[in-house]
């Protein structure tokens, strides 16, 4: 589904990603862990085309998509739930969902997204900037699903959410995984991340320093304390 080969990404002179190689298979959930500032969001930006890599190669469904504009990637079946949600503040909830529909046939329709997030239906005519943080997160996920993706990039979907809402996001993630969606997930919440992941990569200073299955990481106290700051 998605392959990154020796990806190097810069912000100006700053060399943020220093040779990332990883893959996400069909129906696979791959989680990226790591402390803040280690390049997790840059990794997502490199994949979706916001900050294209300077060196290396991103391929998606067999195409070299390294310098594709984002809208073309979305048309091919990639979608992003960005860090900080980034819903369109002056659009209503319904408009936020509508503008992401692009005639790519698929399972996700407005009705199904509202079924997954009933709260969005109740607030359909509200402007997105009047939503609570949790509702905005639901909207950001719903908006990405409206594009009918085969690969979903999720950048810290539980950031700043109350525990109840974190569980809600966990439920949705589990559901999407059961549907067979491929997911590349950046997440700070370790227990949530491990509960859905098939494979875990730990990012530190722009490099992958450890890769393993979720079960192994659960018991590997050394890696957890060294790279994630959890005891």
């Amino acid at each position, binding site marked *: 589904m998605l392959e990154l080969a020796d990806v190097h990404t810069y912000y100006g002179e700053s060399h943020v990603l220093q040779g990332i190689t990883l893959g996400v298979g069909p129906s696979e959930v791959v989680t990226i862990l790591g402390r803040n500032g280690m390049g997790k969001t840059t990794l997502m930006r490199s994949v979706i*085309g916001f900050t294209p890599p300077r060196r290396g190669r991103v391929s998606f469904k067999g195409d070299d998509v390294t310098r594709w504009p984002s809208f073309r990637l*979305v048309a091919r079946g990639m979608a992003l739930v960005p860090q900080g949600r980034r819903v369109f503040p002056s659009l209503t909830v319904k*408009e936020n969902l509508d*503008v992401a529909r692009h005639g790519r046939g698929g399972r996700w329709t407005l009705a199904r997204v509202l079924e997954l997030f009933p709260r969005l239906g109740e607030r359909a005519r509200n402007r997105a900037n009047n939503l609570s943080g949790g509702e905005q997160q639901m909207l950001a996920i719903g908006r990405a699903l409206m*594009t009918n993706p085969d690969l979903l990039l999720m950048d810290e979907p539980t950031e700043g959410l109350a525990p109840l809402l974190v569980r809600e996001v966990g439920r949705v993630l589990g559901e999407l995984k059961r549907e067979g969606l491929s997911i590349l997930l950046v997440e700070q919440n370790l227990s949530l991340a491990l509960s859905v992941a098939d494979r875990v990569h730990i990012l530190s200073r722009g490099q992958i320093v450890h890769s393993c299955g979720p079960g192994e990481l659960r018991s590997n106290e050394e890696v957890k304390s060294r790279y994630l700051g959890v005891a």
Partner: protein
Amino acid sequence: MSGEFWITQAFNGLSYGALLFLLASGLSLIFGVMRIVNMAHGSYFMLGGYVGLSVVWRTGSFAAALLAGALALALVGVGMERFFLRRLPGQTLGQALMTIGFALIFQDLALLIWGGDPYSIPVPATLQGVLTAGALRFPVYRIFIVVVAVVIGAALWLILDRTRVGAMLRAAVDDREMAQGVGIHVPRISFAVFALGAALAALGGVIGAGFLGVYPGADFEVLPYAFVVVIVGGLGSLPGAMVGSLLVGLLDNFGKALFPELSYFTLFAPMALILALKPTGLFGRA
């Protein structure tokens, strides 16, 4: 001062504001979607007037002049966007300098083609004349300008507020990068907005040539007005452009009528005040 004075001046301000709206709405939308400060926007106004003039000379048709002016400048705008500005993505200063370059080139070209004499576009007979109500006199042509602006403003509002394409455009104004990240073809929207903005400015130019005339320097004469409208109303906001145009039209007219020696002051002092109190303009967002 009599009531007639106030009504007449208010009407003149309203009709001038209507003309400014045609000019400034496109400037505002172009900035909103593309973050380009288009210094050549006044040139579209002037060149629209000149193209309209030539068409009237050839065909005698005012309607043809409106159509030809709008179409010709839509092509010019699209050419600028597609072949030049798009090559400097995200470089705000570079793009602004490029549009200044275009404005200067257009100025010289206009001088070369149409010479230095001022002209006026002859207005069709149906739009001449004056409506009188008691002691009040309303030139039909100025009523026509207001009607055109209201119709275009309503159409723009319906498209922006009520259609999916309009929502996509507003999404691109809100967050251009994320708009592309949900699959919106933002370059196509930029293209359409540039065409529309240039066409509206040219339409304003043809109509304006009917009562202000068209002459060398008209481009840089109207440009500050358009910028005041956009800054007061809020960059990228259509309601802002509507309210801003009306405000600037009225301020300018009353300023010139009441304090002729202070006319720039009455225009720019309120702008400075609004900016100080609300830096994003009346309808703008940070």
